[in-house]
């Protein structure tokens, strides 16, 4: 389990307008590119120092590739990060609050305690 890396994907995509659109239009390609090129970047380094050990599990990669926010919740990704990015990608296709309410409804089968989000 690499909750940190799931969160790092959501975080770095959410803060980049081009990546938000790219992930919306081509999730498989974006996830594959990101894991190869960005997953190991230390975020405040510009000179090539990078980590060497970060990679998704198959389950995590699938969840991101299929835009499966329910699975991401189950895997313990940070709910605020997932929600913010998914609103950015999909709210535009729905009426006011429609997407947010449907998003919550798809999580109805989760009871407390929710999946642990500690990283």
């Amino acid at each position, binding site marked *: 389990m690499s909750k940190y890396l799931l969160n790092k994907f959501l975080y770095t995509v959410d803060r980049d307008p081009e990546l938000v659109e790219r992930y919306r239009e081509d999730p498989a390609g974006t996830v594959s590119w990101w894991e190869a090129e960005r997953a190991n970047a230390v975020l405040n380094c510009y000179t090539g120092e990078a980590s060497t050990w970060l990679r998704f599990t198959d389950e995590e990669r699938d969840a991101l590739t299929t835009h499966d926010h329910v699975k991401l919740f189950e895997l313990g990704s940070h709910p605020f990060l997932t929600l913010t990015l998914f609103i950015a990608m999909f709210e535009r296709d729905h009426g006011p609050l429609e997407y947010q309410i449907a998003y*919550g409804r798809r999580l109805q089968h989760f009871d407390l305690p929710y999946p642990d989000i500690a990283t």
Partner: protein
Amino acid sequence: MATVVAVIASTHHPFYYRASTATGEDRPPFADEWVRKITAFRETLTRANPDVLVMVGSDHFHQLWLDNMPQFLIGKAPFYDANWYNEEREFGLPRMLLKGDEDLSAHLLREGLDRDFDLAFSNELRIDHSITCPIITLRPEADLPIVPIYTNIFAPPLPRPKRFVQLGEAIREIVESWPSHLRVAIIGTGHLSLELGGPRQFGPHGPDPEFDRRAVEWIATGDLDGCLSEVTLDSLHAPGNATHGFMDFMLMMGVAGAGAKADYVDSLDLFHTMEAYFTWYPNGAPK
């Protein structure tokens, strides 16, 4: 020494800016009442005539990230740019620029460290809506220097509720020991019950109205003992998965002091969350 002329605690609702400025059919039905309540709340700060604002909030994964996460951080910079691309995108928040008060930042850092709070600091901090929302609601001119204080209510492991209260108590004493003639307001924002990204999000009310009712009572009456006896890191999951933001209210109860009744209390039941507004005047209400 400096004077604490007001202590203010409130929720921070990023949709207020858009709701309050919307017109025509874009304007939500609750906007007028919300603006009325905010205008009255703003007056409680205006009347205190502050010179400097200490602003307590929590970064929402904007500048502070999991590779380097501080528990408590104080900004020490001459200026703070504010609001982020994803806050513009989702909430329509404007870009802002606020002045800092580096002297008060330095005093809070030095004295805080000497009181065993291992505070992180930042000399270049872009602040987010946890601090700009109360600027927009309480001081929309954005003309006063600030000292931002960030707490971690977001990325576990978190400090316990008691630590937030202790930090609030320390902030009050440290500001009152600042060798300055300036009038300081201490403002902090948090949440009542709140769910984000979970099954209980965006309901017709906050996810746990009973928690909200009790929380408002704890805050309004300064019932720190009652609050601390019931609120734990574990218990805060039950009212909603983002309810750990309530610990910023507990910090502000520490600033106001145990047993301090709020001089001004108001709330507004909205979809998704309850709004709540509190003001204390430690040295008596302004004439």
